[in-house]
């Protein structure tokens, strides 16, 4: 009996379908829970889903490496999904044509500083080069950030955690700072959410208004492209 149970566990771990089923189940469950508790911005569904998977792995004493090997089949889709981001970018191009000057003046420094502030703080507090590399693309949307981290040699789990916290913090910061700065223009608020808070900020912007959402997704794609093109180059030049 016991021997056949071990055999069963080995058989189930050998197929990537069990990791895929666990991922889908956890994601759907977390969507349902997040909907139930009123979609708070501090708790994105991804975070809850990841917690559910981590808890299941721990309870079933499955190695996270085994899980990720299976789930890797699902993550293969990230490649075409990154290419797919070109469609909303193409659909927002008329905004770029109309506003190219303010965009050219404010987007590159904003996107560069989003990375530099955190690097400076982490460096001043004595973080290791691997931690610095993991934090550098923290404001970039996850599929693009995963491509950047390959070039920099950072830690993927640390980057993912950093992305989540950055998205939540950016959403909070925009709602806290908008009123004292007297900014009510939804184009600016959307941009700030997209540039700093990637996909999590963009979701929040779409809840504010379609205008804010459109500008957030534009800010998110442009930040992603700008960082993907410049950061690995800057990293190489600095000799890190």
């Amino acid at each position, binding site marked *: 009996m016991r021997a056949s149970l071990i055999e069963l566990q080995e058989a189930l771990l050998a197929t990537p379908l069990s990791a895929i089923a666990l991922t889908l189940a956890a994601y759907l469950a977390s969507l349902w829970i997040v909907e139930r508790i009123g979609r708070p911005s501090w708790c994105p569904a991804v975070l809850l889903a990841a917690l559910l998977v981590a808890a299941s792995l721990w309870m079933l004493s499955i190695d996270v490496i085994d899980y990720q090997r299976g789930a890797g089949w699902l993550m293969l889709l990230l490649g*075409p999904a990154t290419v797919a981001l*070109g469609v909303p970018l193409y659909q927002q191009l008329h905004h770029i044509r109309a506003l190219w000057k303010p965009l050219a003046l404010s987007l590159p420094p904003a996107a560069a500083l989003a990375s530099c502030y955190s690097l400076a703080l982490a460096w001043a507090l004595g973080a290791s080069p691997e931690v610095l590399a993991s934090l550098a693309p923290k404001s970039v949307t996850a599929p693009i950030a995963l491509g950047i981290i390959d070039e920099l040699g950072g830690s993927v789990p640390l980057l993912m955690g950093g992305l989540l916290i950055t998205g939540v913090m950016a959403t909070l910061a925009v709602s806290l700072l908008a009123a004292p700065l007297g900014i009510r223009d939804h184009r600016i608020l959307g941009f700030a959410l997209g540039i700093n808070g990637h996909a999590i900020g963009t979701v929040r912007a779409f809840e504010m208004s379609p205008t804010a959402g459109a500008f957030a997704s534009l800010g998110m794609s442009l930040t992603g492209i700008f960082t993907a093109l410049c950061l690995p180059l800057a990293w190489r030049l600095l000799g890190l």
Partner: protein
Amino acid sequence: MIALLRGFLWLTGFWLAGETLVVLLGLPVSAGVVGMLLMTGMLMLRVGRLDDIAAASQPLIGLLAMLIMPGVVGVFFVADDFAGQWLAVAVALVGGTLASVLTTLLLMRRFMPPEPGSATPEETPS
């Protein structure tokens, strides 16, 4: 359904074209980003069917959060690897993000022209 498959073939094809360029030219950029730029350029030249590509793109973009989730799971298992650095990480993420949101808002307020039409939209900020 066939439109979705055609669109998925375009997306995969562009990813492969991106990978080809990255490998041949030794670019320090991921294949996905190069593929996305190639596809945006192609759409601007009106090559390819936007309908097909959008049919495959929209569901994939909607699923992005789920696709990155297995990567997030790892963060709960690396606590020991970065022992002693969590304070630096937390300060960098929280402080850095606050500072960069403030900078972005100030920069955009400085350079953004007033909205055409009215000063503020009617949508209620929440």
